[in-house]
């Protein structure tokens, strides 16, 4: 850490700021992967070599990893004293004095992510109906996170940073279109191996 701090300081930056940026980027990539897996898992896409439980387990584990990375991103943001953001701004939207709107997008996405994760882990207790209702809000969390990145992300102003955002947007758009196309053709509930 000492060497890292010194190296970062000599490069003219605060290591916490670098951490916040990089964990934010990784979080957006993982959230995008989670949405992709979630959208495609719900369509029962499977082959003998890639069973459905594998997609479901991957979706679950990538999502938990995304939450952990978002947690670090939030933590380093709060620890960084260059921009003072109070701890409650991490959970209560529109309470950050710094870039109130764009930070709020991240805050709301973080709150939704916490609720979606909690209801998923306690799914056998809350029941399927509640879980499903809450799980739809994951579709809101992802564009909020993307908006948070585009609005206040330092790297979103670079060409590769913008390209990264476009790649995420493109991947999710294609997955959602595939889902809508399948549901249009097959109906919302497909019977595996059936005659529909």
């Amino acid at each position: 850490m000492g060497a890292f701090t010194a190296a970062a300081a000599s490069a003219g930056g605060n290591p916490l700021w670098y951490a916040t940026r990089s964990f934010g980027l990784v979080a957006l990539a993982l959230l995008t992967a989670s949405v992709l897996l979630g959208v495609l898992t719900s369509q029962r896409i499977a082959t003998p070599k890639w069973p459905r439980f594998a997609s479901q387990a991957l979706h679950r584990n990538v999502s938990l990893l995304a939450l952990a990375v978002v947690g670090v991103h939030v933590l380093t943001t709060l620890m960084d004293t260059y921009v003072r953001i109070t701890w409650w701004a991490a959970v209560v939207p529109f309470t950050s004095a710094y870039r109130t709107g764009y930070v709020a997008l991240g805050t709301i996405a973080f709150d939704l992510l916490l609720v979606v994760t909690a209801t998923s882990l306690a799914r056998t207790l809350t029941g399927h109906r509640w879980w499903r209702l809450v799980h739809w809000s994951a579709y809101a969390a992802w564009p909020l996170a993307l908006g948070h990145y585009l609005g206040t992300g330092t790297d979103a102003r670079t060409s590769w940073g913008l390209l990264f955002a476009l790649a995420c947007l493109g991947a999710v758009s294609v997955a959602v279109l595939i889902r809508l196309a399948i549901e249009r053709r097959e109906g919302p509930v497909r019977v595996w191996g059936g005659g529909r």
Partner: protein
Amino acid sequence: MRLRVNPIACAAHGLCAELFPEWIQLDEWGYPIVDDEPIPPHLQVHARRAVAQCPTLALVAEKA
């Protein structure tokens, strides 16, 4: 422990048969046919996983 399927909640995702083929087979429409026998202790971990992973929570584990 025994397994039971709620036939109204089940939407034939078929994950249970992938996760616990020792006790669950799929019929020709993809709906599970569950063995009624009590599940021996060494297989109960697989039964519980199948219950937890069911997308519609239609698979239920019952005591005894």
